[in-house]
């Protein structure tokens, strides 16, 4: 956009746009006198038109009455001599002609924005105004848009401002047209912006009579360009609203504060336009559909009945005429390519795209275009019939299926007005494919088939069909397009469930499903999420419930188990005190606890890389020092329970074939790892004794650590980006124990481990991919004692369920700690010692009937227990 010619306000046009040889400027007079004059003229015109209409109606009634009074036979003769019948008829004609003229003129005064040629560049707003025939852009504004501009002038005048600024235009646009809908969709209230806007108004410079500021002039011209770009016939308020928002930095900041950025505003405005376009398109389509035959017969009557085809097919053109097919949004590139291939030589097409990316929508789009007859000549006056493969192959043996297909294709050949659609063509058996290929190569008809990229590579490409099918790719749409598609579908969902969607809900359904659901594709997965969110909201809150972003998040959370709602105060406290909570279960190992806690906090604050697992750690250290205990504690405190931990003992995966146990064998059972993560993507994966796994498995994990995904044996991509992966290893244990005794600092120990001890065990690229390599030091006696206290507390917890109290003396715990500690196995023997000395003694006492409810069991050294009897009730 050009810079303003002068900083002062202007009353004569300072900017212009050149479109189709004409120069468009803003020259609408807005001063008070002009407005008043315009208003008066409007009143006078409306009064005259109204009066003429009333007079014409009176004359019509008069003529009817006079004709009724005179004999039917005498009406004609009455016309030739002075009579009331003749006078009323003549006046009726005269006033009617006057009304006709006025109506035509009103319609003609509605100028239309020139039609933009497909792909034509957008005009630039330039200053000064170029030479040429000038047109007033104001003439291309809808009544409501011009009223909003007039009100902006009145607002500036009321505040005594020196100019009409974009802020004025923005404020007055808020109460017109679809702008309130924009606010509703964004989930914000007028009250949220009222005060700041009022305060801002008071800061604008004051002056005499306001004129249109250069910035506002640009807004008014940009609104025209905006409408022109989108093939609109006139400028509406929504364009003025959007351009005023774009022009004024203050308004943008204000919306930022309400968590609405430019992309959001643009997408909501687009949403409104999509609804308008769908309505316009529907009207046009209905008109065109009136000429399209709905049966097997074409307009030229050259076709024949097609009973065999009808038995296994569905007529898509008939469905389109009946309005049963969904509208197609976007996909101009694919449609263009498709028609180009068809026009080039009538070759058959296979649309290759992932499930849910919109292949069926494209087929529906073709059907719709065929109904409107805006298709290449070869498709004109034709039917689009989809062969339903299950109907063709179901319940019969292969030779009968072939007979059915032959009969259907014979119908197609005779009728000569059928274009076939075959969805999921990879499901065709080889024999059927052979028959179809034969028919297609003889150019009897052509097929629009669909398949997925995997099926294309695995089946279609190697089959005979590849000779006759030309590939047209239908990739998953990008986020913005997917949002527009969902916006176009939401209207139907709103109607079905009687709810109202906010933009936040639409956007989140797309962005979150894109991030967290990898088994299916956009836009289908987002539409499904919206459908479920609408159902949940309508059940919970009744009719006219507002479906917000949090409803979508809740549905996704239920589906995936991944927490994605905003962090609550309670959860914030929990996250900040995570170390403390973990230390409630894990004694010592501060470095490890801190590293894991920080990773979890980063993940929840959404500061982590989204294409890798939440975190990957390598825990090194001797047995029984808390490596597994820490993993369990993380699973319990962050993933909702120890069950969320998927534990794999990698010593069981030592041979090459065990790769298949993890990712599944081709055509066989699902993989243990991939299936577990597919079902529960939000989990902690613990890989014990990692160094013992086969090298091929280590390579497999290289990809998981790096890209956060793994492809299983059936070709499905499994997402690891919501998992924490903890790898434990005993490698270098002897060194760690010696170094700890020698008092080597942890950092130095880690460097030595990485450079020397682990060198022959793990490849450097694998070690580099860990977010953290954490050394677990052998436990000190003091730490073992604390662990003993923890375990004794667990015994007390178990007894509490039986109504029995339990406590241990300090001497008893110390004795247990001493017995249970082994420098080689850490605190692992402690559990066995507690079992042997404590649990056994209590069990015996229970069986002997020495302990009753409410009694207290006291543990003394050497497993001696004393029972303090409770008082009788």
């Amino acid at each position: 956009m050009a810079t303003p010619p002068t900083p002062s306000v202007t009353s004569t046009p300072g900017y212009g746009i050149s479109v189709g040889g004409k120069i468009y400027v803003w020259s609408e007079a807005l001063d008070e006198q002009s407005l008043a004059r315009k208003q008066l003229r409007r009143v006078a015109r409306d009064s005259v038109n109204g009066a003429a209409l009333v007079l014409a109606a009176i004359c019509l009634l008069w003529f009817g009455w006079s004709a009724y009074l005179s004999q039917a036979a005498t009406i004609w003769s009455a016309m030739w001599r002075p009579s009331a019948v003749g006078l009323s008829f003549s006046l009726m004609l005269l006033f009617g002609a006057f009304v006709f003229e006025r109506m035509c003129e009103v319609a003609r005064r509605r100028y239309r924005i020139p039609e933009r040629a497909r792909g034509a560049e957008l005009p630039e707003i330039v200053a000064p105004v170029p030479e040429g025939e000038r047109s007033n852009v104001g003439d291309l504004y809808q009544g409501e848009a011009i009223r909003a501009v007039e009100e902006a002038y009145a607002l500036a005048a009321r505040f005594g401002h020196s100019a009409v600024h974009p802020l004025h235009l923005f404020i007055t646009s808020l109460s017109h047209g679809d702008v309130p809908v924009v606010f509703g969709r964004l989930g914000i209230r007028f009250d949220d912006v009222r005060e700041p806007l009022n305060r801002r108004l008071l800061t604008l410079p004051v002056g005499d009579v306001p004129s249109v500021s250069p910035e506002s002039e640009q807004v008014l011209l940009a609104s025209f360009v905006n409408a022109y770009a989108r093939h609109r016939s006139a400028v509406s308020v929504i364009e003025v609203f959007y351009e005023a928002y774009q022009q004024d930095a203050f308004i943008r900041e204000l919306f930022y504060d309400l968590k609405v950025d430019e992309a959001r505003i643009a997408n909501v405005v687009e949403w409104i336009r999509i609804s308008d376009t769908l309505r316009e398109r529907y009207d046009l389509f209905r008109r065109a559909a009136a000429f399209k035959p709905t049966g097997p017969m074409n307009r030229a009557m050259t076709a024949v009945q097609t009973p065999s085809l009808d038995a296994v097919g569905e007529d898509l053109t008939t469905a389109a005429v009946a309005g049963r097919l969904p509208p197609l949004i976007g996909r101009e590139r694919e449609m263009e390519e498709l028609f180009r291939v068809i026009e080039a030589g009538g070759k058959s097409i296979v649309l290759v795209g992932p499930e849910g990316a919109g292949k069926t929508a494209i087929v529906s789009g073709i059907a719709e275009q065929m109904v409107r007859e805006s298709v290449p000549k070869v498709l004109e006056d034709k039917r689009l019939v989809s062969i339903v493969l299950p109907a063709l192959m179901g319940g019969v043996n292969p030779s009968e299926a072939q007979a059915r297909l032959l009969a259907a294709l014979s119908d197609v050949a005779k009728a000569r007005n059928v274009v076939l659609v075959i969805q999921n063509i990879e499901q065709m058996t080889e024999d059927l494919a052979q028959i179809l290929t034969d028919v297609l190569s003889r150019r009897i008809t052509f097929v629009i088939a669909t398949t997925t990229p995997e099926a294309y590579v695995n089946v279609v490409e190697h089959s005979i069909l590849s000779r006759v099918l030309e590939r047209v790719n239908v990739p998953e749409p990008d986020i913005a397009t997917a949002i527009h598609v969902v916006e176009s579908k939401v209207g139907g969902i709103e109607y079905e469930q009687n709810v109202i969607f906010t933009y936040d809900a639409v956007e989140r359904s797309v962005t979150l499903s894109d991030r967290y659901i990898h088994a299916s594709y956009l836009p289908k997965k987002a539409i499904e999420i919206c459908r479920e969110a609408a159902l949940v909201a309508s059940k919970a809150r009744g009719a006219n419930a507002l479906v917000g972003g949090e409803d979508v998040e809740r549905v996704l959370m239920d589906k995936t188990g991944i927490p994605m709602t905003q962090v609550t105060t309670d959860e914030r406290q929990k996250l900040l005190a995570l170390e403390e909570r973990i230390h409630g279960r894990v004694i010592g190992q501060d470095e490890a606890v801190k590293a894991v806690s920080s990773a979890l906090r980063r993940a929840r604050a959404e500061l982590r890389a989204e294409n890798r697992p939440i975190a990957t750690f390598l825990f090194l250290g001797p047995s029984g020092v808390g490596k597994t205990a820490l993993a369990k504690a993380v699973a319990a405190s962050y993933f909702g329970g120890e069950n969320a931990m998927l534990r794999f003992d990698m010593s069981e995966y030592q041979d090459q074939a065990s790769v298949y146990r993890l990712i599944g064998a081709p055509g066989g059972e699902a993989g243990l790892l991939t299936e577990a993560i597919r079902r529960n993507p939000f989990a902690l994966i613990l890989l014990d004794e990692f160094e013992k796994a086969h090298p091929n498995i280590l390579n497999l994990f290289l990809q998981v650590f790096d890209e956060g995904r793994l492809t299983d044996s059936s070709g499905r991509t499994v997402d690891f980006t919501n998992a924490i992966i903890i790898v434990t290893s005993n490698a270098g244990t002897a060194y760690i124990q010696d170094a700890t005794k020698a008092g080597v600092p942890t950092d130095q120990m880690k460097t030595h481990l990485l450079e020397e001890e682990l060198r022959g065990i793990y490849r450097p690229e694998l070690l580099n991919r860990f977010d953290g390599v954490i050394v677990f030091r052998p436990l000190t006696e003091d730490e073992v004692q604390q662990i003993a206290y923890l375990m004794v507390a667990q015994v007390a917890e178990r007894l509490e369920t039986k109504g029995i109290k339990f406590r241990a003396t300090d001497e008893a715990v110390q004795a247990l700690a001493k017995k249970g500690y082994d420098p080689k196995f850490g605190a692992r023997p402690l559990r066995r010692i507690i079992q042997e000395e404590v649990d056994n003694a209590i069990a015996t006492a229970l069986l002997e009937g020495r302990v009753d409810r409410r009694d207290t069991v006291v543990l003394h050294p050497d497993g001696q227990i004393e029972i303090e009897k409770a008082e009788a009730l």
Partner: protein
Amino acid sequence: MIMRLILTELVGGFLALPVWWYTRGLSIMSDWVRRTIREASEMFALGVWVRNLFVPMYGETEWSGKIISFGVRIAMIFVRGVAVAFWTVLALGAFAAYLVSLPLAVIGALYHGTGLLFF
């Protein structure tokens, strides 16, 4: 002020009416006639039938079928042609009525008005 404007609109409107009637009004009407005839022809698919005059109907490719088809198509083209012609005549009739209606209305109003007033 408002009365003056109303008067100007009224008088100006009536004075401009004859000019408008035979310039812009005429072009609007002729557009309408053209559109009506085109839509009628689209509705009865006359073009499609003429283009397919020698194409057998219902996929009947034997000689007898071809001959019958040709006959039926000729008959259908005739019937559909009559229908299109009927619409065309109607549209042209409306156009002719448009051409004469304004002078007829003025003359009629003057003739009947003065006649009733003075005789």
